[in-house]
């Protein structure tokens, strides 16, 4: 999967959930990835170096693995 696009998507989710506060936003981002991402998308973002992820997205992805 195009990792740039997945990174963009994860960041976009995080940015939109951010107004709910960092802890809550991380939790919700994680849940969002679990609920809506196909296994190969999750695998690809887990396998990436995660450097392009915003802090909330990164924390969520870290907990996804």
């Amino acid at each position: 999967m195009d990792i740039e696009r997945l990174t963009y998507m994860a960041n976009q989710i995080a940015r939109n959930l951010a107004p709910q506060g960092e802890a809550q936003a991380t939790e919700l981002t994680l849940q969002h990835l679990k609920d809506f991402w196909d296994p190969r998308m999750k695998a690809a973002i887990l396998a990436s170096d995660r450097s392009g992820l915003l802090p909330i997205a990164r924390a969520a992805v870290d907990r996804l693995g």
Partner: protein
Amino acid sequence: MGFERPPYSRQADFGTPEVLSEQQVTLTIDGREVTVPAGTSVMRAVGECGGSIPSLCATDSVKAFGSCRMCLVEIEGMRGTPASCTTPVMPGMVVHTQTDKVARIRKSVMELYISDHPLDCLTCSANNDCELQDTAAEVGLRDVRYGYDGANHMGQADDVSNPYFAFEPDKCIACSRCVRACDEVQGTLALTIEGRGFESKVRAGQAEDTFLSSDCVSCGACVQACPTSALMEKSVMELGKPERSVITTCAYCGVGCTFRAEMKGEQLVRMVPWKDGKANRGHSCVKGRFAWGYANHQDRITKPMIRESVDLPWREVSWEEALSYTATKLNAIKAQHGPRALGGISSSRCTNEETFLVQKLVRAGFGSNNVDTCARVCHSPTGYGLSKTFGTSAGTQDFDSVMDADVVMIIGANPTDGHPVFASRLKRRLRQGAKLIVIDPRRTDIVRSPHIEAAHHLALQPGTNVAVMTAMAHVIVTEGLAAEAFIQERCEIDEYQDWARFVSDERHSPEVLEPVTRVPAAELRAAARLFATGGNGAIYYGLGVTEHSQGSSTVMSIANLAMVTGNIGRRGVGVNPLRGQNNVQGACDMGSFPHELPGYRHISGSAVRELFEADWGVDLDPEPGLRIPNMLDAALDGSFRALYVQGEDILQSDPNTHHVAAGLKAMELVIVHDLFLNETANYAHVFLPGSTFLEKDGTFTNAERRIQLVRKVMEPANGYADWEVTQELAKAIGLGWNYAHPSEIMDEIARLTPTFAGVSFNRLEAEGSLQWPVNEANPDGSPIMHVNGFVRGKGKFIVTDYVPTDEKTGPRYPLLLTTGRVLSQYNVGAQTRRTANNVWHQEDVLEIHPLDAENRGVKDGDWVRLASRTGETTLRADVTDRVAPGVVYTTFHHPATQANVVTTEYSDWATNCPEYKVTAVQVLPSNGPTEWQESYASWSEKSRRVARVPAE
């Protein structure tokens, strides 16, 4: 045994509209006692107790006018002979409808009419379906004492400009029913009666106008109201009177109008709106009423075709060969690459039963959850946003509810074009005095139309919906206008307080946000106050809300706004998505999304999954599948290889055409199941011909959650209804399906989906329609939702903040493009382009503000090049101040324009619904089509070739 054939007849006409009143009145009519609601006319009361009064100027779709003097009656204690159509019933009234005195008057009135009417009944298109004839018979007209040689109106030229109906002024009796229908039913006010008395004449538009050049939108209401052949469908003129009729549901838009398909054998003669249809109440628009010619258009493909590769011509094959070829390929791909390499797309144009089968085929047959639907590109944020806040993925009201609204707020929707029949009802309410707020970058028709003027039009910068909604919330909360009692009782208080604190922050005030939204703060404040304090507030929204990178956030902010003003859970209020396609609600309900099973239940929930596993006898994948854009991405990296597309044209309707084309090209097997060789079929290996809504049984669910029957009126030209095609494909890959009729599929849906528990074809036959949820708590369905509390328990305020889209204007692309649709065309136009509707919309044009046009040396009607960073296309410019400076607008109905060549892959953060409504573009003068348009046109022609097999 004697056999009585039900004769073809018009739907009963009670003369004046139904009156809803708690109060009942009892009176006596010709010795029969009858009880009717107070306010009912004597004429209607007569009709309701089985009688009939001759009439010419009255029909129950419009208010009585009392001009023809045909309906006179005698009422004891009243002087003279009052007109029954304009006389309301009174308690204890004694009415005589058939006395010698009224018979004499009626006869002489009739004589006058007939002396000025051509007597060519035998060759008239309305012969045997004419109220003038019927009335002459009723009054027993035998002779015309005045002769036929006096002054008359014969010899006037016919107006045949409208493609679907003709106006023959010679046949007009100046009853003004058409004028009143256009005013009251449609709300366009295109017709007038010119002159007085004997000189009265019907006119469309101004003196020089024809029907086509006038404001007429060809809804057909006047044709329906006309008692003679003066206004008549051309199809009836050509084919003659129908011999039977079948009630069915329109297959175009989410209004879901009910029609009588009037037939002659297997030939459809006309579609007439059905008065008992609860969504349309006897009204229609040009699409459903007239634009059905595509059903047997010459472009329709009726034989299956296959080809090894997309640069080869198509080869017509038998159904057996097509199915076994497809099944072999599917099974091979599955064996080699695993189930997750396969997927399907269901159609919002197909029935509930058909979409249910597509997702079942994918989940139970292919073994993946890679199923998606075109709702992805339109209303997926609605499902997401409303389920998070209210607990259901659907609108809260029925259409009738608008008649109790005091303030209507329309956000990013263009109901007069997109949902015309609902718009007519809305306009009626607005003419009665309800206030209107429109939030739209463009000045849509509803902002200013005859007798309607929006109180506020907030012409926001495209992409700033959330900012505007938050600013409105700011005003409501900080000015103390919140509906505290409602919130205390019905909503989660902690969440409310967090949200209220958030929106109260000064940075969300209209003044601070004005530079972003470009909405004057004072105007926004006034609109917010009106909505919060003006009585029942109802919100209607469309794709201008959902098709943004913050689509889901906007839906949630709309839900917040409805809750903070207490506008949920009763008539006249609510949050109402105006759904695009006829069955987009149904397609979503039926589990067309990759993460959820029918009834919006997540695939990871083991209890729900086990229910389906037990019923279907297979194991289901517990992981969510791919959405359409992800399928295309995955195709490019080789992990997604086979796609079954039912009734959708993703190449034309999905964003960034180049990306879609590349994804499709990368797949090993693309199966297109459709009526026409659509644009997606250019990349397909298998073409399975589809059937039209006239050729199948099933159900559609409209934007009000109303489940309605679609009935087969003719045999499928391709041999199979679409549900049968899917079933045959399922059988070919080894699934033992054996549905004999769509009703059995609905039984399975009801068995597995709690919100559909009480739905069955028998129930629908008996009730006409049902609004889900239909379950133990709501056995007769649910016109209004969240009446005694929210479905999720307490309403949940969710903090949403404006996050600007990443699609930004700059020196290279300084303008913002937003897209939409027009009345006469439908979606990608596959159907409407194949009808005479093209006279209203031959090509997509680009609306551009005079200032922007002048800066670029562009004049009205010039060819312009529209370019974004993803691609470019050319089309003609329409210079207009409907759009603000800096904003341009176009539609995407025609493949030659390929407006989606320029749209980007940006999408809603939560659902990936594409951001069609915001693309940074540049517009420059041009001489004609771009290279892509030309190369695409030649490629498309090439890839549509069908090999000519020499006859054996």
